[in-house]
């Protein structure tokens, strides 16, 4: 072999070898950047990865093909890549993806497809793909100016262990043990047998910690025993700190949701073991591991699960440290918003107080506005009542190092999500209320969040029926609801006032019958720059209503637009003129949304 042959061979070989790794060039190095200017500009689309699109059949391990929605269905990150054009057409600018980390694969016949049964916070769930695919997905999103928010859980781990209540070294479904939870001690005088039958997987709350129990009574704290079931990833919780019993609160399942102690220190139902977030060592690990994901993936925000099950002190520690760490890497405006599944506005808002997180999932609005007003045609004064509570219940100044917008103006609004039945559940063909609700969602202040499948008029009931595979829809883009959402997002994108304007309510009513203004909610979005929009929605579907109560002895709606000015409905092209008295009487058809802008700002064809 002469030297030329050797050189040729080596060169060709390097080419062959390099071309394998060269296909990773786009995902080897992560460039951290700030992709969001103002989170109010965003339209979030919440998707469950397992249900959105199946782009890689190669990772369809243990996938159920019979439509059993409690099982893995096959969606993955490659599917998200494949369907980005669909999201673009819908007008989505941010996706919130379900948790990515390794989960207990199955428990009691239910799969961990949703991602909330985490077992290893440092590894990825292989059902969804690998690191390269995940990075490729995020890069593809950013290339299309779509941001990515990751769902994370700090409250609990999956069912990594059981309480060995009867000290027999095996998990038992039905053993004697426990005491009436409201007293937690037999000496309390409660006239009940101290012996209850409980499950070692998920025993009821005991403030002292779950107690061992023999035929002679209690036997001290029940030891925990970690499972060793690698076939379903039910072993070795990671980081390794979570292999210590002191990393957990060990008090058993929450049974009294009004008991703050239980809510904070109890296991989440389903045997999800409550992490001792009070421990600084645990906090350090949670900050590290979740910040690492931001830096390794160029994520744009966290949606944080089960906020109210973690003490405030944790958020006051976790949030600023995460912000600081990602900011040091070049990521500003990193969004932290969380889920406190509760209708208590003060409780939900409390997590946005100074030093905590940027925003919350606006559950009170879901219950009081979208359910009571839009779904049940209740009085629209509920909109105003809730809005008036905001300055009291929510943080009014931006979080230090946060997104630069006060929580009061950056609440994440939603109609429904993966934990509640879909808006159309029970009335799948009645699109009017949904379209009216979407009209409000995409024109009110805050950050709109659309649950995947809403655009396809999915109508599933409670979990898991509300987690339908999106491919059941065929990803149709010509449906009435899809087109309505796409149009609203286009309009929102074009009119800054709809995104960033102040929210001023101009008309609400407690009338819900045949009255002139029944069902009307009208509000303005105004900016100091003069950008302006007026929105009027008829939340009821029985008759046209007006922004006037003249028939009841009242007047017409007063507006902030100059007297005599002309406004144009961007949805219909209709022009209306503000009266000399600065009033406007708008006729709004059943479930109609009207969006009016100054004539000079009107853009035709949206």
């Amino acid at each position, binding site marked *: *072999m*002469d030297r*030329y*042959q*050797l050189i*040729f*061979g*080596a*060169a*060709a*070989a*390097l080419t*062959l*070898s*390099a*071309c*394998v*790794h*060269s*296909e*990773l*060039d786009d*995902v*080897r*190095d992560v460039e951290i950047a700030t992709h969001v200017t103002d989170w109010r500009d965003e339209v979030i689309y919440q998707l469950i990865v397992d249900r959105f699109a*199946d*782009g*890689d*059949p*190669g990772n*369809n391990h243990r*996938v159920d*093909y*019979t*439509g059993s929605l409690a099982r893995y269905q*096959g969606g993955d990150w*490659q599917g998200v890549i*494949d369907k980005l054009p669909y999201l673009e057409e819908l007008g989505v600018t941010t996706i919130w993806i379900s948790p990515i980390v390794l989960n207990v694969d199955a428990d009691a016949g239910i799969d961990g497809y949703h991602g909330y049964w985490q077992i290893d916070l*440092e*590894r*990825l769930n292989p059902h969804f793909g*690998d*690191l*390269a*695919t995940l*990075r*490729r997905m995020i890069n593809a999103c950013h290339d299309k100016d779509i941001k990515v928010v990751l769902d994370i859980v700090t409250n609990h781990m999956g069912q990594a262990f059981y309480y060995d209540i009867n000290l027999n070294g095996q998990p038992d479904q039905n053993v004697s043990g426990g005491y009436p939870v409201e007293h937690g001690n037999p000496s309390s005088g409660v006239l009940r047998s101290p012996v209850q039958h409980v499950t070692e997987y998920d025993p009821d709350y005991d403030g002292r910690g779950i107690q061992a129990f023999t035929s002679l009574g209690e036997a001290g704290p029940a030891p925990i025993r970690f499972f060793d079931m*690698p*076939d379903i990833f039910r*072993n*070795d919780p990671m980081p390794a700190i979570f292999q210590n019993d002191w990393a957990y609160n060990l008090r058993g399942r929450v049974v009294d949701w009004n008991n703050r102690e239980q809510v904070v220190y109890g296991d989440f139902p389903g045997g999800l073991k409550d992490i001792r977030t009070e421990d600084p060592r645990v906090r350090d690990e949670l900050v590290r591991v979740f910040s690492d994901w931001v830096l*390794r993936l160029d994520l744009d925000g966290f949606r944080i699960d089960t906020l109210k099950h973690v003490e405030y002190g944790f958020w006051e520690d976790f949030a600023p440290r995460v912000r600081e760490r990602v900011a040091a890497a070049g990521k500003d405006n990193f969004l932290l918003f969380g889920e406190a599944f509760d209708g208590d506005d003060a409780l939900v808002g409390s997590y946005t107080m100074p030093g905590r997180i940027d925003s919350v999932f606006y559950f009170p609005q879901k219950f009081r506005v979208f359910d009571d007003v839009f779904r049940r045609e209740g009085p629209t004064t509920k909109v105003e009542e809730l809005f008036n509570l905001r300055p009291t219940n929510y943080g009014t100044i931006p979080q230090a190092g946060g997104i630069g917008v006060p929580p009061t103006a950056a609440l994440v609004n939603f109609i429904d999500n993966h934990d509640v039945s879909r808006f159309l559940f029970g009335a799948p063909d009645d699109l009017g209320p949904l379209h009216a609700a979407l009209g409000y969602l995409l024109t009110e202040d805050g950050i709109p969040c659309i649950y995947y499948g809403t655009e396809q008029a999915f109508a599933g009931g409670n979990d898991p029926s509300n987690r339908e595979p999106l491919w059941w829809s065929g990803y149709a883009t010509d449906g009435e609801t899809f087109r309505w959402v796409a149009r609203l997002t286009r309009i929102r994108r074009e009119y800054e006032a709809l995104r960033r304007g102040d929210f001023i309510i101009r008309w609400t009513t407690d009338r819900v019958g045949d009255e002139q203004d029944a069902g009307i909610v009208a509000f303005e979005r105004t900016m100091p720059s003069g950008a302006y929009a007026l929105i009027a929605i008829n939340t009821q579907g029985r008759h046209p209503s007006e922004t006037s109560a003249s028939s009841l002895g009242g007047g017409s709606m007063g507006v902030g637009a100059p007297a005599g000015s002309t406004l144009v409905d961007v949805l219909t092209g209709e022009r209306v003129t503000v009266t000399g008295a600065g009033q406007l009487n708008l006729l709004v058809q059943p479930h109609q949304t009207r969006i009016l802008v100054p004539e000079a700002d009107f853009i035709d064809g949206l």
Partner: protein
Amino acid sequence: MSYGPRAVRTALLSGLLIALFSGAAPSFAQTPAPGAAEAAPDSPGDAADPTPSDAADEGEPAGDEQTSADPAPAVADDIGDAGDATASASTGDIDDADAPGAGAVGQPASPEAAAAAAVSAEGEEAAGNEGDVDDEAPEFWSAFAFGSYGRVVAASDLMGGTGRDADIVAFDPRIDEGTYLELELRREDQWAFMQSKIVATLAIGGPLFHFDGDFDEVLAIRNLYLELIDVAAPGVSIWAGSRMWRGDDMYLLDTWPLDNLNAVGGGLDYTHDLFQLRSAVALARPNDPFQTQIIDVPPEDGSFTPTDVFILDRPRLVLALKGTYFPFGTGEDHGAKLVLYTEYHSISDGNRQTDDGTVEALPSDDGYVIGAQLGGWLVDDHAFINIFARYARGLGAYDPLGVPFSTGAVISTAAAEETLIALSANYEYDFMGVQVAAYYRRFRDADPSLLERNLLGEGAIDIRPHVWFLDWLGLAVDLSYQALEETGLDVTTDEPVGGEVWKLGILPFISPGGRGTYTRPHLRLIYSATFRDEGARRLYHSADPRASREVEHFIGIGAEWWIDTSSYLGPQLR
């Protein structure tokens, strides 16, 4: 972007191969050395010899002049080990798609060895029912022969466990493999106008009953065919049935890099002094959802017997054509050959029923293989070298018994491709010998949604020097390196998925057949130490003990033999 030492080493490995391919082979061809003929890979040997193949040598101890060839023993690796995870399309999921070696006692098993044996057997006493076979062979004769390839291993990992295969690539060094056996029964007859041969080969995969206590071995029929020889004209043969249809192998890496068909069909061959043409047509329909779906339906006529209905039934049709040119003829003590090879694969369209009850249409599919081999041998030096290059596209990138990896939704293999370059060589001198094998392979899976993923590159090089202390006692040292790289990122390191394995083995052996790197049987002690880097350990599931072992031991005792099997008895029979 920088690439780590593994990539560099892999590149160097493939570089060596390419360099050899680009340079060494022609050089070899240009400087043919005179000498003996026994080490001729794919040499036609006694192609025209009507002798009932190597039955003539059964029971004859072989001298070292009969040993330098590249036999082709088979392997039945553990299903599910790391090697399987990276198994090539060529091997599919069926490990025992590998093949056995052959040869009478003391006789080489591979084509090369067979050819060598045939040459050396000339003039020797032929065995078989009919006694002597020579130029005055009787017009009619019959023979019944038994042949076998086998290896049996009992090994420990020195940690209280069973010694296990510790490889990460598809074609891994043959040192720590498990038990595998082939038993061949053969009936041969000389008729008035031609010869006939009926071959039946039963394969048995381990573990054996005496190891696991399961009175239930894993069985397969590997050969079951009739071959007619000298049909209408000398050198023309035709066969039909189920057959391992193969060319030259790489013994050390346990694979057949160019042609390796396992299918049911038939073929027509013609052998001449200077060339050989082989053709085959075969069908394969693995029982997988890519090709087969059978459902039970209730009878429509009111009877109680359920009826099996083939919803999907689309066997793969493979057409293969192989031409070999021997520039120095086939009867010399030195020689060379150039092989050109091609396959065409085709599968019809079809429909399959999905789990949700809908019907999914599967389009027709096809693909091809093209390849070449350059080889040469020097009998006196007991030397040969074979250099292979193979490219496969579409369906051709998958073994006929394999299927596209992602059969759940992959319905077209159009995007799949495989490139393979390989080298196999042997040299012996007096009381020493050395075997070498190496390959580099690049494979891209077919999944249409993953055109930029599921690409892997892998390779291995294995060197096994031998020394004989006595004619029947020797020692072999096996040093190998293997590497794998994929287009996936490891979640814990952010580095590409892949790894490296170094392996050092020591094999003292007793060879009753005498010297020769390919002389069998062997009774041997085996010790192998496998050194994994971090990437290689991560290729195993975290629950697998191998995921945490930097060093893996394999120590045991074993035996390997090939005796008079027909798969490699001479080019006219292959």
